[in-house]
Protein backbone atom coordinates (compact mmCIF):
# COMPACT_ATOMS: atom_id res chain seq x y z
CA UNK A 1 0.00 0.00 0.00
CA UNK A 2 2.87 2.33 0.73
CA UNK A 3 3.85 1.78 -2.83
CA UNK A 4 0.42 2.86 -4.04
CA UNK A 5 0.43 5.80 -1.66
CA UNK A 6 3.81 7.01 -2.85
CA UNK A 7 2.94 6.52 -6.46
CA UNK A 8 -0.33 8.37 -6.04
CA UNK A 9 1.45 11.27 -4.39
CA UNK A 10 3.99 11.39 -7.16
CA UNK A 11 1.36 11.20 -9.88
CA UNK A 12 -0.84 13.84 -8.26
CA UNK A 13 2.12 16.18 -7.81
CA UNK A 14 2.98 15.71 -11.43
CA UNK A 15 -0.63 16.38 -12.48
CA UNK A 16 -0.72 19.54 -10.37
CA UNK A 17 2.49 20.76 -11.89
CA UNK A 18 1.21 20.21 -15.40
CA UNK A 19 -2.26 21.65 -14.95
CA UNK A 20 -2.13 24.30 -12.26
CA UNK A 21 -0.68 27.28 -14.08
CA UNK A 22 -1.96 29.79 -11.56
CA UNK A 23 0.75 31.67 -9.69
CA UNK A 24 0.66 33.59 -6.43
CA UNK A 25 1.23 36.73 -8.46
CA UNK A 26 -1.88 36.04 -10.54
CA UNK A 27 -3.96 35.79 -7.40
CA UNK A 28 -2.53 38.91 -5.85
CA UNK A 29 -3.33 40.76 -9.05
CA UNK A 30 -6.90 39.53 -8.94
CA UNK A 31 -7.66 40.95 -5.51
CA UNK A 32 -10.04 43.91 -5.42
CA UNK A 33 -7.25 46.06 -4.06
CA UNK A 34 -5.31 45.60 -7.25
CA UNK A 35 -8.27 46.11 -9.54
CA UNK A 36 -8.17 49.89 -9.37
CA UNK A 37 -4.70 50.20 -10.75
CA UNK A 38 -4.08 46.94 -12.48
CA UNK A 39 -6.06 46.33 -15.63
CA UNK A 40 -5.26 42.66 -15.78
CA UNK A 41 -6.83 42.20 -12.39
CA UNK A 42 -9.99 44.14 -13.09
CA UNK A 43 -12.10 41.05 -12.67
CA UNK A 44 -11.87 39.56 -9.23
CA UNK A 45 -12.28 36.06 -10.56
CA UNK A 46 -9.92 35.75 -13.48
CA UNK A 47 -10.88 32.34 -14.69
CA UNK A 48 -7.51 30.91 -15.39
CA UNK A 49 -7.97 28.72 -18.39
CA UNK A 50 -5.74 25.75 -18.16
CA UNK A 51 -7.63 23.72 -20.59
CA UNK A 52 -8.11 20.05 -20.78
CA UNK A 53 -8.84 18.41 -24.07
CA UNK A 54 -12.58 18.57 -23.92
CA UNK A 55 -15.18 20.16 -26.15
CA UNK A 56 -17.36 21.00 -23.19
CA UNK A 57 -14.56 22.84 -21.54
CA UNK A 58 -13.97 24.76 -24.74
CA UNK A 59 -17.56 25.97 -24.60
CA UNK A 60 -17.00 27.33 -21.13
CA UNK A 61 -14.03 29.29 -22.33
CA UNK A 62 -15.83 30.74 -25.31
CA UNK A 63 -18.83 31.98 -23.39
CA UNK A 64 -16.69 33.19 -20.55
CA UNK A 65 -14.68 35.39 -22.85
CA UNK A 66 -17.59 37.74 -23.46
CA UNK A 67 -17.53 39.30 -20.08
CA UNK A 68 -14.81 37.80 -18.08
CA UNK A 69 -11.67 38.16 -20.05
CA UNK A 70 -12.75 41.52 -21.43
CA UNK A 71 -11.47 43.16 -18.29
CA UNK A 72 -8.12 41.52 -18.64
CA UNK A 73 -7.96 42.48 -22.29
CA UNK A 74 -7.45 46.09 -21.36
CA UNK A 75 -10.93 47.56 -21.23
CA UNK A 76 -10.23 48.61 -17.72
CA UNK A 77 -11.60 48.60 -14.22
CA UNK A 78 -15.32 48.07 -13.84
CA UNK A 79 -15.96 51.63 -12.73
CA UNK A 80 -14.70 52.83 -16.09
CA UNK A 81 -16.90 50.39 -17.96
CA UNK A 82 -20.00 51.35 -16.02
CA UNK A 83 -19.32 54.76 -14.49
CA UNK A 84 -22.83 55.53 -13.24
CA UNK A 85 -25.70 53.32 -12.27
CA UNK A 86 -29.09 54.71 -11.42
CA UNK A 87 -32.61 53.55 -10.72
CA UNK A 88 -32.36 50.07 -9.30
CA UNK A 89 -36.00 49.17 -9.54
CA UNK A 90 -38.64 49.29 -12.19
CA UNK A 91 -40.61 52.51 -12.28
CA UNK A 92 -43.61 53.28 -14.33
CA UNK A 93 -43.71 57.03 -14.00
CA UNK A 94 -41.06 59.62 -14.63
CA UNK A 95 -41.75 61.15 -11.23
CA UNK A 96 -40.56 57.92 -9.64
CA UNK A 97 -37.01 58.88 -10.47
CA UNK A 98 -37.10 61.29 -7.54
CA UNK A 99 -37.39 58.30 -5.24
CA UNK A 100 -34.73 56.32 -6.98
CA UNK A 101 -31.44 56.50 -5.18
CA UNK A 102 -28.31 55.69 -7.08
CA UNK A 103 -28.13 51.98 -7.61
CA UNK A 104 -25.48 51.28 -5.03
CA UNK A 105 -26.20 47.56 -5.05
CA UNK A 106 -25.41 47.17 -8.75
CA UNK A 107 -22.43 49.46 -8.39
CA UNK A 108 -21.03 47.28 -5.63
CA UNK A 109 -21.65 44.09 -7.60
CA UNK A 110 -19.93 45.54 -10.67
CA UNK A 111 -16.97 46.51 -8.52
CA UNK A 112 -16.86 42.97 -7.20
CA UNK A 113 -16.58 41.75 -10.77
CA UNK A 114 -20.11 40.51 -11.42
CA UNK A 115 -20.53 41.82 -14.92
CA UNK A 116 -21.17 40.55 -18.39
CA UNK A 117 -19.55 43.34 -20.37
CA UNK A 118 -21.50 43.83 -23.62
CA UNK A 119 -20.86 47.46 -24.55
CA UNK A 120 -22.90 47.34 -27.76
CA UNK A 121 -24.33 50.55 -29.19
CA UNK A 122 -27.32 50.72 -31.54
CA UNK A 123 -28.88 53.85 -32.93
CA UNK A 124 -32.31 54.99 -34.08
CA UNK A 125 -34.17 58.29 -34.32
CA UNK A 126 -31.14 60.21 -33.03
CA UNK A 127 -30.72 58.10 -29.90
CA UNK A 128 -27.54 56.07 -29.38
CA UNK A 129 -28.42 53.32 -26.93
CA UNK A 130 -25.59 51.30 -25.44
CA UNK A 131 -26.29 48.09 -23.58
CA UNK A 132 -23.28 48.30 -21.32
CA UNK A 133 -23.70 45.02 -19.60
CA UNK A 134 -25.48 42.75 -17.17
CA UNK A 135 -24.85 42.61 -13.46
CA UNK A 136 -26.97 41.57 -10.47
CA UNK A 137 -27.58 38.28 -8.77
CA UNK A 138 -29.28 35.06 -9.78
CA UNK A 139 -32.60 36.30 -8.42
CA UNK A 140 -32.31 39.70 -10.07
CA UNK A 141 -30.25 40.21 -13.21
CA UNK A 142 -29.86 43.89 -13.90
CA UNK A 143 -29.58 45.52 -17.35
CA UNK A 144 -27.30 48.55 -17.59
CA UNK A 145 -27.95 51.04 -20.42
CA UNK A 146 -26.35 54.30 -21.43
CA UNK A 147 -28.35 56.51 -23.80
CA UNK A 148 -26.78 59.41 -25.71
CA UNK A 149 -29.14 62.04 -27.07
CA UNK A 150 -27.87 64.73 -29.45
CA UNK A 151 -30.95 66.89 -29.21
CA UNK A 152 -30.73 69.99 -27.06
CA UNK A 153 -34.47 70.44 -27.01
CA UNK A 154 -34.94 66.96 -25.61
CA UNK A 155 -32.11 67.15 -23.10
CA UNK A 156 -33.23 70.53 -21.78
CA UNK A 157 -36.81 69.34 -21.42
CA UNK A 158 -36.08 65.95 -19.87
CA UNK A 159 -33.96 65.34 -16.81
CA UNK A 160 -35.32 61.84 -17.03
CA UNK A 161 -37.54 59.77 -19.27
CA UNK A 162 -39.27 56.43 -19.16
CA UNK A 163 -37.98 53.62 -21.36
CA UNK A 164 -39.93 50.52 -22.32
CA UNK A 165 -37.77 47.44 -22.67
CA UNK A 166 -38.28 43.77 -23.36
CA UNK A 167 -35.91 42.72 -20.64
CA UNK A 168 -34.58 39.41 -21.80
CA UNK A 169 -36.20 36.57 -23.70
CA UNK A 170 -35.17 33.49 -25.53
CA UNK A 171 -34.87 33.77 -29.29
CA UNK A 172 -37.93 31.59 -29.65
CA UNK A 173 -40.05 33.61 -27.26
CA UNK A 174 -38.97 36.81 -28.94
CA UNK A 175 -39.56 35.51 -32.45
CA UNK A 176 -43.01 34.18 -31.60
CA UNK A 177 -44.13 37.20 -29.64
CA UNK A 178 -45.29 35.35 -26.59
CA UNK A 179 -46.84 38.53 -25.32
CA UNK A 180 -49.18 37.04 -22.80
CA UNK A 181 -48.11 35.67 -19.46
CA UNK A 182 -47.05 32.15 -20.06
CA UNK A 183 -46.37 29.72 -17.29
CA UNK A 184 -42.72 30.54 -17.73
CA UNK A 185 -41.51 34.04 -18.44
CA UNK A 186 -43.44 36.58 -20.38
CA UNK A 187 -43.03 38.88 -23.30
CA UNK A 188 -44.53 41.91 -21.60
CA UNK A 189 -42.25 44.89 -21.79
CA UNK A 190 -41.04 46.58 -18.63
CA UNK A 191 -40.76 50.27 -17.93
CA UNK A 192 -38.00 52.04 -16.05
CA UNK A 193 -36.73 55.57 -15.64
CA UNK A 194 -33.49 56.75 -17.23
CA UNK A 195 -31.76 59.59 -15.39
CA UNK A 196 -29.66 62.37 -16.90
CA UNK A 197 -25.96 62.55 -16.08
CA UNK A 198 -25.31 65.58 -13.92
CA UNK A 199 -22.13 66.45 -15.81
CA UNK A 200 -23.05 65.62 -19.39
CA UNK A 201 -26.68 66.42 -20.14
CA UNK A 202 -26.62 64.47 -23.40
CA UNK A 203 -26.13 61.22 -21.47
CA UNK A 204 -28.78 59.23 -19.59
CA UNK A 205 -28.26 56.11 -17.50
CA UNK A 206 -30.72 53.33 -16.96
CA UNK A 207 -30.46 50.33 -14.65
CA UNK A 208 -33.42 47.96 -14.65
CA UNK A 209 -34.24 44.38 -13.67
CA UNK A 210 -33.98 41.80 -16.40
CA UNK A 211 -36.16 38.78 -16.93
CA UNK A 212 -34.91 36.35 -14.30
CA UNK A 213 -36.37 33.31 -16.03
CA UNK A 214 -34.47 33.68 -19.27
CA UNK A 215 -31.33 35.39 -18.07
CA UNK A 216 -29.61 32.43 -16.51
CA UNK A 217 -26.24 30.90 -17.08
CA UNK A 218 -25.51 29.81 -20.59
CA UNK A 219 -28.77 31.09 -22.10
CA UNK A 220 -28.90 33.03 -25.35
CA UNK A 221 -30.85 36.16 -24.58
CA UNK A 222 -32.60 38.80 -26.67
CA UNK A 223 -33.23 42.27 -25.24
CA UNK A 224 -35.17 44.96 -27.08
CA UNK A 225 -34.95 48.61 -26.12
CA UNK A 226 -38.44 49.36 -27.33
CA UNK A 227 -39.26 53.04 -26.84
CA UNK A 228 -38.75 56.31 -25.02
CA UNK A 229 -41.64 58.08 -23.35
CA UNK A 230 -41.52 61.75 -22.40
CA UNK A 231 -43.47 63.28 -19.52
CA UNK A 232 -44.71 59.89 -18.54
CA UNK A 233 -46.99 59.66 -15.53
CA UNK A 234 -47.46 55.93 -15.64
CA UNK A 235 -50.65 55.53 -17.64
CA UNK A 236 -50.16 58.57 -19.84
CA UNK A 237 -47.28 60.26 -21.65
CA UNK A 238 -46.82 63.13 -24.04
CA UNK A 239 -44.76 61.50 -26.69
CA UNK A 240 -43.44 58.02 -27.37
CA UNK A 241 -40.56 57.44 -29.76
CA UNK A 242 -40.26 53.88 -30.97
CA UNK A 243 -36.64 52.70 -31.30
CA UNK A 244 -36.91 48.89 -31.35
CA UNK A 245 -33.19 48.29 -30.86
CA UNK A 246 -32.41 44.61 -30.46
CA UNK A 247 -29.41 43.16 -28.60
CA UNK A 248 -28.36 39.55 -28.49
CA UNK A 249 -25.90 38.02 -26.08
CA UNK A 250 -25.10 34.84 -24.18
CA UNK A 251 -25.01 34.67 -20.41
CA UNK A 252 -21.69 33.17 -19.27
CA UNK A 253 -22.02 29.47 -18.54
CA UNK A 254 -19.81 29.74 -15.49
CA UNK A 255 -22.27 32.03 -13.74
CA UNK A 256 -19.71 34.80 -13.43
CA UNK A 257 -22.07 37.63 -14.43
CA UNK A 258 -24.52 37.13 -11.60
CA UNK A 259 -23.77 36.77 -7.92
CA UNK A 260 -24.75 33.48 -6.37
CA UNK A 261 -27.08 33.91 -3.42
CA UNK A 262 -28.86 31.62 -1.00
CA UNK A 263 -32.16 30.15 -2.11
CA UNK A 264 -34.33 27.85 -0.04
CA UNK A 265 -37.13 25.79 -1.59
CA UNK A 266 -39.77 23.89 0.35
CA UNK A 267 -42.41 21.36 -0.51
CA UNK A 268 -46.01 22.28 0.22
CA UNK A 269 -46.63 21.62 3.90
CA UNK A 270 -42.98 21.05 4.72
CA UNK A 271 -42.81 24.01 7.08
CA UNK A 272 -45.10 25.27 9.77
CA UNK A 273 -48.02 27.28 8.39
CA UNK A 274 -48.97 30.84 9.13
CA UNK A 275 -52.72 30.52 9.70
CA UNK A 276 -54.83 33.57 8.83
CA UNK A 277 -57.97 34.68 10.63
CA UNK A 278 -59.99 32.95 7.93
CA UNK A 279 -58.17 29.72 8.55
CA UNK A 280 -56.09 29.76 5.38
CA UNK A 281 -52.77 28.04 5.87
CA UNK A 282 -49.87 29.85 4.23
CA UNK A 283 -46.88 27.56 3.79
CA UNK A 284 -43.39 28.81 3.08
CA UNK A 285 -42.42 27.80 -0.44
CA UNK A 286 -39.28 29.75 -1.23
CA UNK A 287 -36.90 32.21 0.40
CA UNK A 288 -34.42 34.08 -1.77
CA UNK A 289 -31.74 36.11 -0.04
CA UNK A 290 -30.79 38.38 -2.91
CA UNK A 291 -28.42 41.31 -3.15
CA UNK A 292 -31.29 43.71 -3.88
CA UNK A 293 -33.94 42.36 -1.56
CA UNK A 294 -35.19 39.31 0.30
CA UNK A 295 -38.12 37.61 -1.37
CA UNK A 296 -40.38 35.20 0.48
CA UNK A 297 -42.94 33.13 -1.40
CA UNK A 298 -45.88 31.49 0.32
CA UNK A 299 -48.23 28.91 -1.06
CA UNK A 300 -51.81 28.33 0.02
CA UNK A 301 -54.75 26.17 -0.81
CA UNK A 302 -58.18 27.76 -0.60
CA UNK A 303 -60.09 24.56 -0.78
CA UNK A 304 -62.47 24.03 2.14
CA UNK A 305 -61.53 27.32 3.79
CA UNK A 306 -63.83 30.18 4.66
CA UNK A 307 -62.73 31.98 1.52
CA UNK A 308 -63.38 29.06 -0.77
CA UNK A 309 -65.78 30.57 -3.29
CA UNK A 310 -67.51 32.99 -0.98
CA UNK A 311 -69.31 34.52 -3.95
CA UNK A 312 -70.00 33.56 -7.50
CA UNK A 313 -68.17 36.66 -8.64
CA UNK A 314 -64.53 36.17 -9.60
CA UNK A 315 -63.49 39.66 -8.50
CA UNK A 316 -65.35 39.29 -5.23
CA UNK A 317 -63.31 36.20 -4.46
CA UNK A 318 -60.18 37.88 -5.72
CA UNK A 319 -60.65 40.87 -3.42
CA UNK A 320 -61.40 38.69 -0.40
CA UNK A 321 -58.23 36.67 -0.89
CA UNK A 322 -56.18 39.77 -1.64
CA UNK A 323 -57.36 41.39 1.58
CA UNK A 324 -56.41 38.29 3.53
CA UNK A 325 -52.95 38.22 1.98
CA UNK A 326 -52.42 41.90 2.68
CA UNK A 327 -53.44 41.43 6.32
CA UNK A 328 -51.14 38.48 6.89
CA UNK A 329 -48.31 39.94 4.82
CA UNK A 330 -48.45 43.17 6.79
CA UNK A 331 -47.93 41.30 10.04
CA UNK A 332 -45.12 39.02 8.97
CA UNK A 333 -41.68 40.14 10.01
CA UNK A 334 -38.27 38.85 9.03
CA UNK A 335 -36.14 38.49 12.13
CA UNK A 336 -32.40 38.34 11.60
CA UNK A 337 -30.37 37.75 14.75
CA UNK A 338 -33.03 39.56 16.75
CA UNK A 339 -33.48 42.52 14.39
CA UNK A 340 -36.96 42.74 12.91
CA UNK A 341 -37.55 43.79 9.32
CA UNK A 342 -40.99 44.87 8.10
CA UNK A 343 -42.14 43.85 4.67
CA UNK A 344 -41.51 46.33 1.87
CA UNK A 345 -44.07 44.95 -0.54
CA UNK A 346 -46.64 42.21 -0.79
CA UNK A 347 -48.22 40.83 -3.92
CA UNK A 348 -50.89 38.21 -4.04
CA UNK A 349 -52.47 36.04 -6.61
CA UNK A 350 -55.85 34.41 -6.81
CA UNK A 351 -56.45 31.42 -8.98
CA UNK A 352 -59.96 30.56 -9.99
CA UNK A 353 -59.36 27.04 -11.06
CA UNK A 354 -61.82 25.00 -9.06
CA UNK A 355 -63.96 22.80 -11.20
CA UNK A 356 -61.77 23.39 -14.18
CA UNK A 357 -58.50 21.83 -13.16
CA UNK A 358 -59.65 19.70 -10.26
CA UNK A 359 -60.16 20.20 -6.59
CA UNK A 360 -56.68 21.41 -5.76
CA UNK A 361 -55.79 24.93 -6.66
CA UNK A 362 -52.74 26.09 -4.86
CA UNK A 363 -51.58 29.59 -5.39
CA UNK A 364 -48.56 31.66 -4.48
CA UNK A 365 -48.05 35.07 -3.08
CA UNK A 366 -44.89 37.00 -2.45
CA UNK A 367 -43.65 39.40 0.15
CA UNK A 368 -40.37 41.29 0.09
CA UNK A 369 -38.03 42.58 2.72
CA UNK A 370 -34.79 44.52 2.67
CA UNK A 371 -31.69 42.64 1.57
CA UNK A 372 -29.86 41.16 4.54
CA UNK A 373 -26.36 39.89 5.14
CA UNK A 374 -27.06 36.19 4.77
CA UNK A 375 -23.46 35.18 5.38
CA UNK A 376 -23.20 36.93 8.69
CA UNK A 377 -26.65 35.99 9.97
CA UNK A 378 -26.69 33.21 12.52
CA UNK A 379 -30.45 32.94 12.71
CA UNK A 380 -33.09 33.93 10.19
CA UNK A 381 -36.70 33.54 11.22
CA UNK A 382 -40.07 34.45 9.73
CA UNK A 383 -42.55 35.49 12.38
CA UNK A 384 -46.31 35.85 12.27
CA UNK A 385 -47.98 36.44 15.63
CA UNK A 386 -46.86 33.46 17.76
CA UNK A 387 -45.74 31.28 14.88
CA UNK A 388 -42.12 31.23 13.81
CA UNK A 389 -40.49 29.50 10.87
CA UNK A 390 -36.75 29.09 11.23
CA UNK A 391 -35.03 29.40 7.85
CA UNK A 392 -31.45 29.50 9.05
CA UNK A 393 -30.40 28.54 12.52
CA UNK A 394 -30.37 25.66 14.93
CA UNK A 395 -33.97 24.58 14.38
CA UNK A 396 -33.70 24.57 10.63
CA UNK A 397 -33.30 21.22 8.99
CA UNK A 398 -33.22 22.74 5.54
CA UNK A 399 -30.10 23.63 3.61
CA UNK A 400 -30.16 26.38 1.04
CA UNK A 401 -29.75 25.20 -2.49
CA UNK A 402 -27.01 27.72 -2.99
CA UNK A 403 -24.88 29.14 -0.26
CA UNK A 404 -22.75 32.20 -0.36
CA UNK A 405 -19.80 30.78 1.28
CA UNK A 406 -18.04 32.60 4.03
CA UNK A 407 -14.80 30.80 4.69
CA UNK A 408 -14.83 32.00 8.26
CA UNK A 409 -18.08 30.10 8.77
CA UNK A 410 -17.54 26.74 7.09
CA UNK A 411 -20.65 25.29 5.55
CA UNK A 412 -21.98 22.42 7.56
CA UNK A 413 -22.18 20.08 4.66
CA UNK A 414 -20.94 16.65 5.52
CA UNK A 415 -19.83 14.47 2.70
CA UNK A 416 -22.90 12.29 3.03
CA UNK A 417 -25.90 12.19 5.23
CA UNK A 418 -24.27 11.85 8.65
CA UNK A 419 -27.21 9.86 9.91
CA UNK A 420 -27.01 7.26 7.22
CA UNK A 421 -26.37 3.79 8.55
CA UNK A 422 -22.86 2.52 8.30
CA UNK A 423 -22.63 0.29 5.30
CA UNK A 424 -21.41 -2.73 7.16
CA UNK A 425 -20.37 -3.46 10.72
CA UNK A 426 -16.72 -3.12 11.58
CA UNK A 427 -15.83 -6.65 12.51
CA UNK A 428 -12.16 -6.27 12.87
CA UNK A 429 -9.58 -3.60 12.35
CA UNK A 430 -9.20 -2.86 8.73
CA UNK A 431 -6.09 -3.47 6.77
CA UNK A 432 -3.13 -2.66 8.99
CA UNK A 433 -1.86 -0.36 6.29
CA UNK A 434 -4.68 1.98 7.18
CA UNK A 435 -3.83 3.31 10.62
CA UNK A 436 -6.58 3.10 13.18
CA UNK A 437 -4.70 5.33 15.57
CA UNK A 438 -6.11 8.81 15.56
CA UNK A 439 -4.44 12.13 15.86
CA UNK A 440 -5.40 15.48 17.26
CA UNK A 441 -8.60 16.83 15.75
CA UNK A 442 -8.40 19.27 12.93
CA UNK A 443 -9.48 22.73 13.89
CA UNK A 444 -11.79 24.58 11.60
Amino acid at each position, binding site marked *: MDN*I*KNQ*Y*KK*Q*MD*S*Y*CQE*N*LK*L*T*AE*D*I*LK*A*TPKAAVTDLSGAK*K*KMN*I*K*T*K*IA*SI*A*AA*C*VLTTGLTGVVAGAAGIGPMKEIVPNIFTPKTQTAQSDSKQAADDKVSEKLVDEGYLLNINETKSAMGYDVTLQGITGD*ITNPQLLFKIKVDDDTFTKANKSFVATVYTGLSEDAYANRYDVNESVGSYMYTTATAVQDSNDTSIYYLSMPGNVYWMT*SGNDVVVEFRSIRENCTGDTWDNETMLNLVYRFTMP*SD*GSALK*TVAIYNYEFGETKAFVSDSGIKFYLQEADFGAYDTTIVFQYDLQDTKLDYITSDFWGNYDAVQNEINKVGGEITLVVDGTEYKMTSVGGCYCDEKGEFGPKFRTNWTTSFASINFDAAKEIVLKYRNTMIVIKGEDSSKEP*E*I*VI*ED*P*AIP*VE*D*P*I*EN*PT*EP*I*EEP*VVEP*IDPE*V*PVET*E*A*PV*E*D
Partner: protein
Amino acid sequence: MKVTRESFTTTYDKYKNTVYSVIFNYVRNSEDASDVTQDVFLKLLDCDTEFTDDEHLKAWLIRVAINSSKNLLKFRNRFSDEEVPEMPYFDEHNEDSEILQALIKLPEKYRIPLHLFYYEDYSIKQIGDVLGAPEATIKIRLKRGREKLKKLLN
Protein backbone atom coordinates in the same frame (compact mmCIF):
# COMPACT_ATOMS: atom_id res chain seq x y z
CA MET B 1 -0.47 33.64 12.53
CA LYS B 2 -2.15 35.56 9.74
CA VAL B 3 -1.62 35.35 6.00
CA THR B 4 -0.76 38.74 4.56
CA ARG B 5 -0.05 39.87 1.03
CA GLU B 6 3.62 39.79 1.93
CA SER B 7 3.60 36.21 3.19
CA PHE B 8 1.10 35.02 0.59
CA THR B 9 3.56 33.73 -1.99
CA THR B 10 5.22 31.38 0.47
CA THR B 11 1.87 30.12 1.71
CA TYR B 12 0.58 29.65 -1.81
CA ASP B 13 3.61 27.72 -2.97
CA LYS B 14 3.40 25.49 0.07
CA TYR B 15 -0.32 24.65 -0.16
CA LYS B 16 -1.31 25.13 -3.79
CA ASN B 17 -1.12 21.42 -4.58
CA THR B 18 -3.04 20.53 -1.42
CA VAL B 19 -5.87 22.83 -2.43
CA TYR B 20 -5.83 22.07 -6.14
CA SER B 21 -5.70 18.32 -5.68
CA VAL B 22 -8.65 18.12 -3.28
CA ILE B 23 -10.72 20.36 -5.55
CA PHE B 24 -9.75 18.33 -8.58
CA ASN B 25 -10.95 15.23 -6.77
CA TYR B 26 -14.37 16.82 -6.42
CA VAL B 27 -14.84 18.56 -9.75
CA ARG B 28 -12.70 16.16 -11.85
CA ASN B 29 -11.98 18.94 -14.29
CA SER B 30 -8.66 20.74 -14.31
CA GLU B 31 -10.09 24.01 -15.57
CA ASP B 32 -12.71 24.29 -12.85
CA ALA B 33 -10.16 23.11 -10.33
CA SER B 34 -7.92 26.04 -11.24
CA ASP B 35 -10.79 28.51 -10.95
CA VAL B 36 -11.89 27.19 -7.58
CA THR B 37 -8.29 27.12 -6.36
CA GLN B 38 -8.07 30.79 -7.16
CA ASP B 39 -11.30 31.45 -5.26
CA VAL B 40 -10.01 29.61 -2.21
CA PHE B 41 -6.79 31.60 -2.06
CA LEU B 42 -8.66 34.85 -2.67
CA LYS B 43 -10.79 33.98 0.34
CA LEU B 44 -7.64 33.35 2.32
CA LEU B 45 -6.38 36.81 1.45
CA ASP B 46 -9.74 38.26 2.36
CA CYS B 47 -10.20 36.51 5.69
CA ASP B 48 -9.20 37.76 9.10
CA THR B 49 -8.70 34.34 10.63
CA GLU B 50 -5.80 34.03 13.03
CA PHE B 51 -4.35 30.58 12.41
CA THR B 52 -2.81 28.82 15.36
CA ASP B 53 -0.28 26.90 13.28
CA ASP B 54 0.39 25.44 9.82
CA GLU B 55 -1.92 22.48 10.44
CA HIS B 56 -4.75 24.82 11.29
CA LEU B 57 -4.13 26.80 8.10
CA LYS B 58 -3.96 23.63 6.02
CA ALA B 59 -7.19 22.28 7.53
CA TRP B 60 -8.90 25.62 6.87
CA LEU B 61 -7.77 25.57 3.24
CA ILE B 62 -8.97 22.02 2.74
CA ARG B 63 -12.31 22.76 4.33
CA VAL B 64 -12.87 25.87 2.23
CA ALA B 65 -11.73 23.98 -0.88
CA ILE B 66 -14.31 21.27 -0.17
CA ASN B 67 -17.10 23.78 0.44
CA SER B 68 -16.21 25.74 -2.67
CA SER B 69 -16.13 22.61 -4.80
CA LYS B 70 -19.51 21.50 -3.50
CA ASN B 71 -20.97 24.91 -4.12
CA LEU B 72 -19.75 24.81 -7.71
CA LEU B 73 -21.25 21.37 -8.23
CA LYS B 74 -24.55 22.45 -6.66
CA PHE B 75 -24.59 25.52 -8.86
CA ARG B 76 -23.92 23.45 -11.94
CA ASN B 77 -26.67 21.00 -11.10
CA ARG B 78 -29.25 23.67 -10.61
CA PHE B 79 -28.43 26.46 -13.00
CA SER B 80 -26.37 25.20 -15.84
CA ASP B 81 -27.24 23.01 -18.74
CA GLU B 82 -23.69 22.88 -19.95
CA GLU B 83 -22.15 19.52 -20.26
CA VAL B 84 -19.38 19.11 -17.78
CA PRO B 85 -17.10 16.24 -18.55
CA GLU B 86 -17.70 13.49 -16.04
CA MET B 87 -14.15 12.37 -16.21
CA PRO B 88 -10.97 14.33 -16.74
CA TYR B 89 -8.96 13.68 -19.83
CA PHE B 90 -6.08 11.32 -19.36
CA ASP B 91 -3.85 9.64 -21.82
CA GLU B 92 -5.03 6.09 -21.29
CA HIS B 93 -1.67 4.75 -22.34
CA ASN B 94 0.21 6.88 -19.87
CA GLU B 95 1.20 4.46 -17.17
CA ASP B 96 2.74 7.31 -15.20
CA SER B 97 -0.70 8.33 -14.01
CA GLU B 98 -2.28 4.92 -13.68
CA ILE B 99 -3.20 5.18 -9.99
CA LEU B 100 -4.46 8.71 -10.29
CA GLN B 101 -6.62 7.69 -13.24
CA ALA B 102 -8.03 4.78 -11.29
CA LEU B 103 -8.68 6.70 -8.09
CA ILE B 104 -10.47 9.49 -9.87
CA LYS B 105 -12.91 6.96 -11.29
CA LEU B 106 -14.12 5.93 -7.84
CA PRO B 107 -17.36 7.33 -6.42
CA GLU B 108 -16.90 10.56 -4.47
CA LYS B 109 -17.52 8.93 -1.10
CA TYR B 110 -14.51 6.69 -1.59
CA ARG B 111 -12.13 8.86 -3.55
CA ILE B 112 -12.12 11.89 -1.23
CA PRO B 113 -11.18 9.96 1.94
CA LEU B 114 -8.62 7.97 -0.06
CA HIS B 115 -7.13 11.14 -1.47
CA LEU B 116 -6.81 12.73 1.97
CA PHE B 117 -5.35 9.52 3.33
CA TYR B 118 -2.84 8.98 0.54
CA TYR B 119 -1.93 12.51 -0.43
CA GLU B 120 -2.24 14.44 2.81
CA ASP B 121 -1.30 11.62 5.16
CA TYR B 122 -4.42 12.45 7.14
CA SER B 123 -5.51 10.11 9.90
CA ILE B 124 -9.02 8.65 10.01
CA LYS B 125 -9.91 11.08 12.76
CA GLN B 126 -8.66 14.02 10.71
CA ILE B 127 -10.51 12.86 7.61
CA GLY B 128 -13.68 12.43 9.63
CA ASP B 129 -13.32 15.91 11.07
CA VAL B 130 -12.74 17.61 7.79
CA LEU B 131 -15.52 15.74 6.00
CA GLY B 132 -17.96 15.86 8.88
CA ALA B 133 -18.43 12.09 8.91
CA PRO B 134 -18.07 9.59 11.77
CA GLU B 135 -14.77 7.75 12.03
CA ALA B 136 -16.46 4.40 11.54
CA THR B 137 -17.86 5.58 8.24
CA ILE B 138 -14.46 6.80 7.12
CA LYS B 139 -12.87 3.48 8.04
CA ILE B 140 -15.38 1.59 5.95
CA ARG B 141 -14.97 3.92 3.05
CA LEU B 142 -11.22 3.67 3.11
CA LYS B 143 -11.46 -0.09 3.21
CA ARG B 144 -13.98 -0.34 0.42
CA GLY B 145 -12.28 2.35 -1.58
CA ARG B 146 -9.00 0.52 -1.45
CA GLU B 147 -10.66 -2.69 -2.53
CA LYS B 148 -12.29 -0.98 -5.48
CA LEU B 149 -9.04 0.74 -6.37
CA LYS B 150 -7.20 -2.55 -6.36
CA LYS B 151 -9.82 -4.04 -8.66
CA LEU B 152 -9.47 -1.18 -11.07
CA LEU B 153 -5.70 -1.43 -11.04
CA ASN B 154 -5.83 -5.13 -11.74
